[in-house]
């Protein structure tokens, strides 16, 4: 395990990754920024009580995820996706054929429709490099349930491929 590090050191190392995670989870830059600041403030307060040899990264993700989920609850009316997705600005797919665009749109729509906990589990697994054990600890569920959340989310996204997107 790492030697004890200062909070500033930890914040510097993880803030970028957590901010990106929050954008993926909330689909909104300003919200992500607000939640990120809130989360690091909470983490700073709780840091003294963090047991030595804890998984600092998972601990920070837990605080960030809780902050994000409560922010989502209080702002449910807001659309929570990278929506109005202007696919022309996606360099990876600027030249994508129309079917591919439909797919991207369908999958993005399905991500937006996921329950927040599933969306959190999916983003943690796919993009943040967290293990199912860590995801379980972050979401307060078992490792098996963390995995089930990820798989359930992927099945919903896959089902959306077959549905024409109503816009």
């Amino acid at each position: 395990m790492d030697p004890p590090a200062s909070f500033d050191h930890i914040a510097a190392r993880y803030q970028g990754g957590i901010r990106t995670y929050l954008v993926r989870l909330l689909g909104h830059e300003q919200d992500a920024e607000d939640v990120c600041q809130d989360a690091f403030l909470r983490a700073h307060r709780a840091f003294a009580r963090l047991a030595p040899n804890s998984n600092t990264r998972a601990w920070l993700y837990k605080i960030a995820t809780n902050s994000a989920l409560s922010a989502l609850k209080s702002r449910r009316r807001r659309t929570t996706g990278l929506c109005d997705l202007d696919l022309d600005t996606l360099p990876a797919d600027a030249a994508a054929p129309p079917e591919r665009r439909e797919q991207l749109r369908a999958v993005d729509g399905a991500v937006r429709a996921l329950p927040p906990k599933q969306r959190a589990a999916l983003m943690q697994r796919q993009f943040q490099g967290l293990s199912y054990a860590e995801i379980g600890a972050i979401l307060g569920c078992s490792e098996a349930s963390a995995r089930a959340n990820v798989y359930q989310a992927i099945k919903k996204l896959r089902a959306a491929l077959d549905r024409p997107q109503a816009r």
Partner: protein
Amino acid sequence: MGVSEKTEAQHDEMIAFLLGDGAPSPATRHWLASDEGRRELAAYGQTLGALDAVYGGTSTRLTARASRHAKRRPSRAGREPARAGRRPAHAARGGAVSAPERRVYYAEMCTPLGPLALAVTDRGLARVAFGHGDAAFAAELRRRLEADVVESPAKLTSVVAEIERYFAGKGRNIDLRVDLAAVTPFQRRVLLAARRVPAGRVVSYGDIARRIGRPRASRAVGQALGRNPVPIVIPCHRVVTSAGGLGGYTGGLGIKKKLLAIEGTYP
């Protein structure tokens, strides 16, 4: 949906396979070879590919898109710079179309594998090369990234610290933002898939090809990994041949062996 329990279990095993969580049972393997299985595997591959394309970008691209959604950025400034080779000679004055000046900072660090040259942009780590951070490296950066190149060890302190942590055995999974703006879409998907292989594991070129929904593209996967702009940080060394061979490596096979040895996966 009304899928049977059996189908449900097969789908779970297929997802596990695509995510690298586990190998399918013989029965599911058999089903995956059927028309239906192949179709489903392709559909899930496309789903994960689409998820990567929309949500897997670097932080800057994601936030740029999200802020467009929030209508906080009415101008086109901040968009992706013009595609390679198409940089406008004279950006319009007044800011509406002018992209911010692109800068890349570089430095050199010492590692047990010899000197490593590193470069970052405001989006993240853009280049890792085995060798010195010298004039030739700077010239390569200028050409590949079409950016102003500045030597600046100060801009790379956190990157160097994270890589030192890796070599000191304190963190086997390097947690750094990367800037993949200069690679092709296919290569980006391959690299992101390779990035998900944790330390202590190896996968085959074919595994990566299947994970990105292009099961027959192993050779192209190998080529894409061979052009990995950020070796070590995107662990293309964890991708080997299905026959048990090491495959190739940009820095030479000696380095691939040493990296795998550090991670305990080279006998």
